[in-house]
């Protein structure tokens, strides 16, 4: 299948269309909304399911040498990407050092929903991938935050010397998403296929439907964010929100090829590098860099890069991964 066909097929999947519905409803100022508790419940489900499935897959195929290497590569990428993002932002935008560093932190980290959407595209297409990629996702959440704080400290801004108190480090490393993802992964490894047999009807069958409902909410939130901050996103920033994921994906692809991941693994590594956090990093930024404007980083990550990755990025990354690995 060529890249256009893939993109077209991706575009008319229910998941993408529910995201577009949410976006449109928000733009039209409909009062459609998903209660906060329900949205949080759905995201707990997605983390639990994706983590557990990854763990079961590792327990079935065993851990090949790639696991450690891939995690190291992920961590290095997470440290590195904010530096690239920061450099791009200083050229492409007029953001202050603090705002630019805060945005950069988001792009070094990852968006787990983009990962979930990408892995469900792989599953639908029948393309296998390394189950331990969810562990890599978890490992990539935090390092970017340190890079960003170092960027600020270097520029002498933001009192970042006292910013990273021990409380913050614990909060970042033990934030709920990471703990549930890694915990469910571990439980999947321990209980294996036998555990999967017990809870498959909950974990696997309704997964795509629940993803649709969750993406509806993401569309609503992203749309409301975009509507409330119109004017804030100058062309340069919007361009950054598209160029940066493509740069990240390229680096992710290089790393994945060096390690020798499968087609699916290469694609997921690209997705991780390309996606921008909107959960763990924004919270950390509010604590450590309160002077940075949340409207900038949230709108960019959630309103520009997330939709770009979801709608166009995923088929592009998949097509590239298939080309470079010679995968079908």
């Amino acid at each position, binding site marked *: 299948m060529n890249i256009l066909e893939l993109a077209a097929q991706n575009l008319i999947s229910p998941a993408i269309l529910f995201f577009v519905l949410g976006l449109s409803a928000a733009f039209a100022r409909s009062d459609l909304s*998903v209660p906060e508790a329900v949205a949080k419940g759905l995201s707990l489900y997605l983390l639990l399911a994706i983590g557990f499935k990854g763990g079961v897959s590792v327990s079935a195929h065993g851990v090949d040498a790639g696991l450690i290497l891939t995690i190291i590569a992920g961590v290095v990428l997470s440290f590195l990407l904010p530096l690239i993002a920061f450099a791009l932002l200083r050229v492409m935008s007029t953001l202050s050092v603090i705002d630019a560093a805060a945005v950069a932190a988001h792009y070094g980290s990852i968006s787990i929903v983009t990962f979930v959407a990408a892995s469900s595209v792989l599953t639908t297409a029948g393309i296998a991938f390394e189950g331990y990629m969810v562990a890599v996702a978890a490992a990539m959440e935090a390092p970017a935050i340190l890079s960003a704080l170092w960027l600020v400290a270097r520029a002498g801004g933001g009192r970042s010397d006292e910013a990273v108190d021990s409380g913050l480090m614990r909060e970042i490393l033990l934030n709920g998403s990471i703990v549930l993802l890694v915990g469910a992964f571990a439980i999947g490894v321990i209980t294996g296929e036998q555990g999967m047999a017990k809870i498959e009807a909950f974990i696997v069958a309704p997964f795509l439907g629940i993803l649709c409902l969750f993406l509806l*909410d993401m569309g*609503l*939130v992203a749309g409301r964010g975009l509507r409330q*901050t119109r004017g804030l996103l100058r062309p340069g920033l919007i361009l950054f929100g598209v160029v940066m994921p493509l740069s990240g994906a390229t680096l992710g692809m290089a790393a994945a090829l060096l390690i020798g991941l499968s087609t699916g693994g290469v694609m997921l590594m690209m997705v991780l590098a390309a996606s921008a956090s909107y*959960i763990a990093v*924004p*919270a950390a*930024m509010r604590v450590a860099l309160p002077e940075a404007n949340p409207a900038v980083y*949230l709108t960019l990550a959630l309103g520009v890069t997330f939709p770009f990755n979801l709608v166009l990025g995923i088929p592009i990354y998949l097509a590239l991964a298939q080309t470079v690995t010679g995968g079908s």
Partner: protein
Amino acid sequence: MQTHKAKRVEITIEAVMEQRLTAALERAEVTGFTVLPVMGGSGRSGRWSREGQVTRAAGMVVVVCIIRPERLDALLEAAFGLLERHIGVVCVTDCEVLRANRF
């Protein structure tokens, strides 16, 4: 009924700062507080709303402390240290309480 003068301090603060604020209050020996949820609001950093919020970063909470008047300054110092760099509002009202020995 017999009531006693006290101060009611209402601190509106980002949810991510709640733990740090309550820890600071405890260090300042504030004996009690109540945390109320906030649905949304508006201020210099714009309008926000809890509905459909996927990120912890954007919410706020209200922390209400009722204290003896003489302890007000200690509380405000403690809160201010934290709030200085952060968005949020502190509002103090005179009030009367029953059972003053609890405060």
